[in-house]
């Protein structure tokens, strides 16, 4: 099994996978708790437009994808405040806008459509040394952000108004978080693919929320789930010659189903033993 790691491209893919799995689930936990689960999807669609721009003007696609994701993040945050009562509207507007722009821009560059497919579904041969360096930079940025701001982010995530009353600059912090989410989405794209990048953020959070008991534990379980799914998914992808993005997400779904079933079994067993104790007491 480890012989596959003798290939340079696979080493890059695994390194990239580990880097993404360290940050994407953390962002995902905050997105889910802030009721913004679809934001990653939106940003990935906007990033695709960035990739198309990059291909068209001859700039490194991950860089243009990151710029597009950052602009998308600012727009999501601004529109969310404009449509306060229907905040999900900002997601819908940008998602359709991003995809429409990507499709139109791609049509100007027909020769590159094969390359776009790898961005859509992910590819383990698509990760270059430059991508790895950019990813490492984003991971460091995320680590610094959460090191300095995890306390205000906790308060902000629980309740924005209380955060403001506590003197936390809620708007600035919220925007900074959205920008960070944009960067993570854009950098995760080459490996998981645009269409599935949000799953790598949201599914580990969903799994973790079912089993954890505290906030810190939620974050750690989400990261662990992300790592297991990325490493397992990449291995299966190489061994079975199937797309990595889809494999990683399917693995996450399997983990989610198993967790839900085990939890249900435990709660039934708990209810049954409580019933027996009551009968014995009577």
């Amino acid at each position, binding site marked *: 099994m480890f012989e596959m790691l003798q290939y340079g491209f696979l080493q890059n893919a695994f390194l990239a996978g580990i880097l993404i799995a360290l940050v994407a689930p953390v962002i995902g936990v905050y997105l889910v*708790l802030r009721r913004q689960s679809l934001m990653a999807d939106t940003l990935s669609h906007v990033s695709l437009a960035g990739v198309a721009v990059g291909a068209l003007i001859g700039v490194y696609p991950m860089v243009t994808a990151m710029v597009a994701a950052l602009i998308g993040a600012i727009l999501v945050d601004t529109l969310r405040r404009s449509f306060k009562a229907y905040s999900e509207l900002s997601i819908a507007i940008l998602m359709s806008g991003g995809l429409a722009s990507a499709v139109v821009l791609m049509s100007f560059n027909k020769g590159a459509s094969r390359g776009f497919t790898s961005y859509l579904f992910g590819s383990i041969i698509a990760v270059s040394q430059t991508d790895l360096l950019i990813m490492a930079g984003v991971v460091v940025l995320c680590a610094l952000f959460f*090191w*300095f*701001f995890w*306390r*205000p982010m*906790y*308060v902000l*995530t*629980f*309740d924005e*108004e*209380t955060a*403001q*009353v*506590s*003197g*936390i600059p809620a708007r600035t912090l919220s925007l900074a978080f959205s920008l960070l989410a944009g960067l993570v989405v854009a950098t995760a794209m080459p490996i998981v693919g645009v269409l599935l990048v949000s799953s790598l953020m949201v599914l580990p959070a969903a799994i*973790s*929320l079912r089993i*954890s*008991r*505290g*906030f*810190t*534990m*939620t974050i750690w379980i989400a990261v662990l789930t992300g790592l297991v799914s990325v490493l397992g998914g990449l291995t299966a992808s190489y061994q079975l010659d199937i797309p990595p993005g889809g494999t990683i997400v399917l693995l996450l779904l399997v983990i989610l189903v198993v967790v839900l079933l085990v939890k249900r079994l435990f709660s039934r067993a708990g209810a049954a033993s409580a019933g027996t104790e009551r009968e014995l007491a009577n």
Partner: protein
Amino acid sequence: MKLAEIRDVVFGYGQTPVLDRLNVQIGTSEFIGLTGPNGAAKTTTLKLLLGLLQPQRGRVELNPTGPKGKPLVLGYVPQNIASFNAGFPSTVYELVRSGLYTRKRWFGLLPAAEVARVEQVLKQVGMWEFRKRKIGELSGGQKQRVCLARALVLEPDLLVLDEPTTGMDVEARSSFYDLITHQVQHHGRTVLMVTHDLEETLPRLTRLLVLDKRIRFDGSPQEFQERMDLRTNNVTLPLYCCYDDEETKPRAAVQEGVL
């Protein structure tokens, strides 16, 4: 000592003004009930006071220091916040401790005395035994107690509560009000609480404000009761019967046949 003042504030959503020339002063060690009909802008008033909304005209002034000479500390418990966040993956202890994460406490170790206060307030609100529970596993009343503890952990000079007992049964409500009364009487805090539950709260309040676009009554609970009792033979009168504004009150009351 004046902790806060709302002076001639006008505020509206879109073209419709919901507050017109609102004037309120808040002093120390007061337990103030804020009531009024639905849509009277009670929550809006709290948000203006806390700086979450900006007045279109007029001013909201908070005293820079509290009664002890230290910077004024505000505590806020929004309406139903814990129930809204029932799925939040936090233990009771984590949530109450987060009350300490204000501007100056973003990183580094928290002072031991402050961390000890988390235990102290959890015991005060009777939730210490539940500290390892997830907040989603608590009842509505317990969740509100936890949110109160979270606001109390910073020892606020002014505690603002927005209908904190919504959804609680009579017993839970009564014990919650006892907790608040204790905070006013024994810790010298000022509490401003939006409430519709006048029957339970009036005996505990030191002051009642009736709001309906502007302050229609501002006085002691005794004055309020006297005013309402004068016009009734054991009939529950509409709230506007206590309004200071003589123009609106009789017309509306006569229309409904209560005066």
